[in-house]
């Protein structure tokens, strides 16, 4: 199987999306003969991504959720696919949507759009892997993300054999769907200790963390 992967993270090679994809690819290439191409949508590529799409057999588009949808540059890419509507009926498209917010519900809300998009393109919809809590990869050691990485390896492995997304793994990744008040308190505590406050202090910005520059100097604040 030949897979064309688009990494839609604004952070490009330094992205959580890349880490997830690495594990997916490890599983995918376990089947001999499977090959893949990988393009970073944030890079200026003079239409290379569109060409890759045009020549693809299977497509995997992976991106982080920005404000409940795709980041702006991923939408730019999607708009550049308009000429292919109805011309690539054999093409199968799968998605990975991950959010920094801890719950999968955020990413899941985009599924109907992605399914509709594939329909408009006239392609075949493989499915969407939606998950939350991925920003934590940056802040924690690889060992603590072992199960997440194993899930992505398994996804890639099954996809590499069947061209489908393993339902059990997709369902497992879709948890937790929602956080409780208590969990949010814990999240804040952990994020402040491990991430926000050390970074703010390192940047000498801790005292200014509540700054309101956009209403400064205005009468009606």
């Amino acid at each position, binding site marked *: 199987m030949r897979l064309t992967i688009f990494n839609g993270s604004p952070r490009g090679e330094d992205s959580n999306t890349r880490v997830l994809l690495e594990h997916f690819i490890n599983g995918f290439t376990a089947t001999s003969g499977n090959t893949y191409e990988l393009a970073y949508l944030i890079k200026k590529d003079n239409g290379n991504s569109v060409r890759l799409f045009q020549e693809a057999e299977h497509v995997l588009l992976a991106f982080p959720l920005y404000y409940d949808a795709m980041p702006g540059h991923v939408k730019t890419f999607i708009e550049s696919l308009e000429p292919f509507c109805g011309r690539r009926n054999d093409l199968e498209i799968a998605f990975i949507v991950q959010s920094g917010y801890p719950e999968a519900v955020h990413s899941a809300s985009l599924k109907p759009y992605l399914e*509709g998009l594939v329909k408009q393109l006239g392609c075949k919809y493989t499915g969407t892997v939606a998950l939350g809590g991925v920003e934590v990869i940056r802040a924690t050691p690889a060992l603590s993300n072992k199960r997440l990485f194993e899930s992505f390896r398994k996804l890639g492995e099954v996809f590499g054999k069947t061209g489908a997304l393993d339902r059990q793994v997709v369902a497992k990744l879709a948890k937790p769907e929602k956080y409780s008040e208590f969990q949010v308190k814990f999240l804040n505590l952990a994020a402040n200790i491990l991430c*926000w406050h050390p970074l*703010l202090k390192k940047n000498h*910005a801790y005292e*200014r963390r*509540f*700054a*309101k520059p*956009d209403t400064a100097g205005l009468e009606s604040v």
Partner: protein
Amino acid sequence: MKTIVLNGNPDASNTIFEDYLNKLSSTLAAANHMVTLFNLRDMGIRYCTGCLGCFVKTPGECIVKDASADMRRKYINSDFALLASPVIMGFTSALLKTAQDRLTPLLLPYFELSADGVRHVGRYAKFPSIGLLLEKSPHTAGDTIRIIHDIYKRYATNIKSSLLFVKLTDSPVEAVVNEINHL
């Protein structure tokens, strides 16, 4: 009432959309709204890089310096924000979405629980309420508007606001103005 209009139409030759928005802005102005119209396609607003600098380096400010700073300042000092876009490939335009992404400095890094999940806390006490204006294309599928509506309802909670309406440009300008006047 202070109203900001973000025009996400990428195609200046789409005069139907442009005329609609201009008529809407002038009708609102005539009804004593202070209207600021941003034509996003002329502003060269760059993509959010996801650097989190607005949380941890220059709190409340974006490290990427471009016209988004002006837009963001106007946005947070408005009572109402009209997001306007033609439907392109089943969604609002990349232009509009890119502008939305660049509003992140209006949020704090901290989390709180909202009706639809964990969200960032607002940096400011007051955010403009939101209306969405869409122009359908001949390719717009039957459920597209509902899908966009659902996503923007979530988006509104994300940006500490609420989505007051979704209107299509095939409804009369006066109908949209009425919605805004009733706020």
